């Protein structure tokens, strides 16, 4: 009996080393496909799971961090507050690589305010929204990303305009904003790799059909309708910095974005003149796509050099969580001086 040779990445890890517990999603749920892309992205980028932390809120989507990278620490927080908890965790240990998964309900409804403020801070964080336009776990009520005119299974019609989380993220100052589709692993996996390599906050709004509650006729976020209206702005490739050195990467293809760790994102344009580093252009294009009833996908906006939150706080070196006692406690001498000052 000959065993099939396993493919290993630069850390000598196989893809299965990036797996987690068995999924409890409904069969065919978009969220499972995203988990698969996440696993692939980490594997392809040869990231050590022990250096990763996983976070989430509450929802079907928010359960998924249990289903990838079982060797990484993870936390399932409360509904809508992943952004706050992540802020604390990342400040406490900025040396780890954090990835978070949230739902559209989690992010755009109860969590909206905290989400916006996390963006402002440019937390170094990859924030994936598994966007199905409904509250899956509570059985299919509209979320704030439900498209106007969409019908619930039971017939109710949504009267509100959907919140476009990409547009909002750009407006709030996000430094990496992408949209993709759970079913498009070829686009999604490199986008996640790029997001992980990005220094700063990366928002990925991933359309992820809820096959149980939002996959009927009349729903704009059904698998069929999304498929029919995808509008990628470019083909995307990602080459991790470390690998570049080995393969002696040949520059010059289409548009390249070099990330701070030397990784290269290659974008083969499908949209004429689209410049992902132009904020106003990105917002215009998003609005045009909305008018056209299309789902613009790809790396929509990118700003490489803004200081991250921990940089703003001057946190460098040892993680705060690992500082030894002698770094954490001022000397008695200082206390004497303070007492002296207070006694005057």
């Amino acid at each position, binding site marked *: 009996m000959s065993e099939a040779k396993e493919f290993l990445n630069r850390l000598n890890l196989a893809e299965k080393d990036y797996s987690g517990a068995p999924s409890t999603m409904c069969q065919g749920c978009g969220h499972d496909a995203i988990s698969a892309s996440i696993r692939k992205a980490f594997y392809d980028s040869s990231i050590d799971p*022990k250096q990763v*932390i996983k*976070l989430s809120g*509450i929802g079907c989507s928010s359960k998924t*961090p*249990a289903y990838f990278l*079982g*060797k*990484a*620490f*993870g*936390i*399932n*927080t*409360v509904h809508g*507050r992943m*952004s*706050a*908890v*992540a*802020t*604390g*965790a*990342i*400040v*406490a*240990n900025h*040396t*780890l690589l954090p990835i978070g998964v949230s739902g559209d309900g989690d992010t755009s409804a109860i969590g909206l*305010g*905290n989400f916006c*403020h996390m963006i402002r801070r440019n937390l170094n964080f990859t924030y994936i929204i598994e966007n199905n336009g409904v509250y899956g776990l509570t059985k299919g009520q509209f979320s704030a990303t439900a498209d106007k005119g969409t019908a619930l299974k039971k017939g109710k019609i949504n009267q509100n305009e959907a919140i476009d989380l990409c547009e909002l993220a750009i407006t709030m100052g996000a430094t990496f904003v992408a949209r993709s589709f759970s079913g498009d692993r070829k686009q999604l996996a490199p986008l996640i790799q790029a997001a992980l390599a990005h220094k700063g906050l990366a928002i990925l709004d991933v359309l992820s059909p809820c096959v149980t509650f939002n996959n009927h006729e009349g729903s704009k976020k059904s698998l069929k309708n999304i498929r029919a209206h995808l509008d990628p702005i470019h083909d995307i490739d990602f080459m991790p910095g470390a690998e570049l050195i080995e393969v002696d990467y040949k520059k010059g293809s289409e548009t390249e974005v070099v990330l701070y760790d030397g990784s290269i994102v290659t974008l083969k344009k499908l949209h004429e003149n689209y410049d992902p580093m132009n904020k106003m252009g990105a917002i215009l294009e998003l609005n045009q796509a909305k008018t056209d009833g299309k789902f613009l996908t790809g790396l929509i906006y990118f700003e490489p050099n803004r200081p991250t939150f*921990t940089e703003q*706080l*001057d*946190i*460098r*070196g040892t*993680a*705060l*969580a*690992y*500082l030894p*006692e002698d*770094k*954490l*406690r*001022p000397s*008695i001498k*200082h*206390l*004497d001086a*303070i*007492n002296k000052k*207070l*006694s*005057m």
Partner: protein
Amino acid sequence: MSTINDVNICIATPNGSGSASANNILFKSIFKMGIPCSSKNMFPSNIQSMPTWYEIRASSAGFGSRKDVIDVMVTFNPETGASDVGKLRENGLLLYDTGACEESWLSRNDIQKIGFPATELSKQIPNAKIRSKLRNMIYVGVISSLFGISREVLIAVLRDTFGDKPEVIESNLMAIELGSKWVEENQVTQDICTLVTIEGGNKGKILSDGNTCSALGAIYGGVSVVAWYPITPSSSLAETMEKYLPELRMDEDKNPTYAVIQAEDEIAAAGIITGAGWAGARAMTATSGPGLSLMNEMIGLAYFTEIPSSYFIVQRGGPSTGLPTRTQQSDILSMYFASHGDTRHVILLPHDLQTCFEFSKLCLDLADQLQTPVFFASDLDLGMNIRPSEPLELKSPSLNRGKLIHEKDIEAQGNQFRRYFDLDGDGIPQRTIPGNQHPKAVYFCSGAGHNADAKRSEDPGDYKELLDRLLKKNHTARLLAPQPLVETSETSRIGMISFGSSVEAVREARHRMNQDGIKTSHLTLLALPLSPLVKDFIQKHEITLIVEQNRDGQVASIVRMDWPELAQKIDSVLVYDGLPVTAGSVHRLSMEKLGGKLL
């Protein structure tokens, strides 16, 4: 009858009018004379022009709580003048500005009245811009001359206060002199009190407020992540940290060993410290009632997932916005039961500057030891009013991180680790933090039901086991948290229990009761859940009065819940009008309660 070093001066002004600085200088001067003294600032929820009262008490016996009698009233607020005059005791002294006084104020004939032309005098201050502010320094001058505060002391205090700004010192001094000269020239006197320097009095003592000492305590307690959202009266706790941290907590590369994050709201602040606690940092927030209400859900997460986190609650008048600049102890039950579901929390109850300092570190320690949210419960009176104290003393030698284990620990115990397993029978499991490279270290943390191995579980047995262990942990806390201070007297049938900012008033009230011939024992409660010593104390006495600054007798409720068999041996003394509690009210209410029971 004039006293020596026993007086309570109340200064009534509109806020934002510059009186804060004048009052501060007056108070510090009395302190500098070595006289036992304390101060209470009763300010409005407003930035400018609304009524403020600042009380300075000198007490030769060394009592520091607010005095229930006003001996001297400085009426510099036209809006409240009439009612302020009414608050003066018989034969008390009214000080007023003849240039800003209404006739009605002067109708009382049972008091001493000294009017001085402050507005007129202030015109002599050359810089018109600061004239109205410095008008307040004129009463400082008047009082100093009337009561016997020397020019040298005043100058020394001005120097301490304005250090590097000689022109400010000078202008203030000028205003003071305008006042004192007026007294001297007009040969005015009073027979309320003479302030007399006590050599060596207050020597080495500091003047500070609870929030400052809590801030310092947390810094010395090794806090590394602070997240907060502004709210009176807790803001100054966080802001004082922001002030001290840069000088106290930079590493050799000049990088901070801390992060202070002004969050967008209290939910985020609680979320941030929960995330930081999970990741292994010592993390805290500071807030007051409304913020506490908003943090409930996150506190429940930390309780259920056993994440260390410290909540510094500086209480104020509730419910709702309530009286945001007044003091109260009415968030005890909110802290104790914070979050939906069956929860019980640990609360530390500091009552003076040293315990503010010590318990702040202890709060961080206990959070790590018990792996749970721990509350540090202060209040506006304790947190914001300036009082004297012995110098802050660093008592506990090192940080206690509890059962936080690392790679080598897991190895040492045979490469085994079960996140939520009660290894030691105290309800407290071991804990690892992200970054730990041991292959067995990893766990997935979730606010949903889970078993001892941190796997999600909806099994009824797992769930009950978890809830029971959490309760066991809370029982462990009864002995781990600071034990009460007990002063018993063999002969007393009456016990009194107090905590926080009431303790000082109760001390004085007991003194008065003692003078009435009523002996009492006292227990200073330092923490919740209740120590068994509290039970002993109550059992030993025929009746125990629990003094609280809330309407509902919140700590008494907890005693009743814990030891129903003692319920008939306790009664409540409740003061909850928002002002710092006085010995007088405790005395009076205690006697009323006892009246029916013992006497």
